[in-house]
């Protein structure tokens, strides 16, 4: 099920750029269309920045996954920050505790095929998203 994994730290703005770059490179390898590449890189950017802004940092894991004939890209963003108390609320567009637009989580979910959010107050947050090649 899993291919080669890449683990990247998210500790600074420069790291967010590095995550974007790595995701783009792997998205090309997997054979995502240009639009799908753009979508998954944008989602990665949103989620990496979320980890940086709301949890002070974390890490991103990027792996190539296969499901029969389809290939895809699975990204996980893991932080040990304050966690999210109300998941449903956090996914609502326009809701934010920071200074952002509040589109990060809900918006990212619309950009990918699978979206999985695990979080509890004080336990940190893990967001895993998957984008399949068409």
């Amino acid at each position, binding site marked *: 099920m899993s291919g080669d994994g890449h683990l990247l730290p998210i500790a600074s703005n420069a790291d967010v750029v590095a995550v974007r770059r790595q995701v783009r490179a792997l998205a090309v390898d997997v054979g995502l269309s*240009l639009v799908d590449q753009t979508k998954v890189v944008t989602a990665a*950017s949103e989620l990496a920045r979320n980890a940086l802004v709301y949890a002070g940092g974390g890490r991103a894991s990027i792996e190539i996954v296969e499901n029969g004939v389809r290939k895809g890209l699975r990204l996980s963003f893991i932080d040990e920050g304050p966690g999210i108390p109300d998941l449903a609320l956090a996914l609502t567009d326009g809701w934010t505790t920071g200074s952002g637009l509040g589109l990060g989580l809900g918006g990212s979910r*619309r*950009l990918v095929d699978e979206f999985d959010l695990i979080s509890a107050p004080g336990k940190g947050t893990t967001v895993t998203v998957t984008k399949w090649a068409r």
Partner: protein
Amino acid sequence: MERVPILKLGDILIISIQVDLEDQSVLALQEDLADKVVSTGARGVIIDITAVEIVDSFIGRMLATIAATSRMLDAETVVVGMRPAVAITLVELGLSLGGVRTALNLEKGVALLDHTRSAPR
């Protein structure tokens, strides 16, 4: 940190974003641009994003903020050269860039500014 150069052409300021920007550079650009609008008395700002591969909510917000700030300083902003994939992604993300005018390319952006200024305000 990279600083984005701001070019002046007549009373129009042109910014062409060529690299994947860090958030810090984006914030610096916002400040630099506001200063430049005032110091040059520019009436129009064109942001060329032809080379930009992704616009996330942070960059999207920058574009909206620049447009709003410039308008307050009496300069009209036009974003030009957005790629189709970027536009589709922005729509999916739920970002409408409200209040930002757009044109297909630099030439059309300049024409749009000329047109706006020749019209009675």
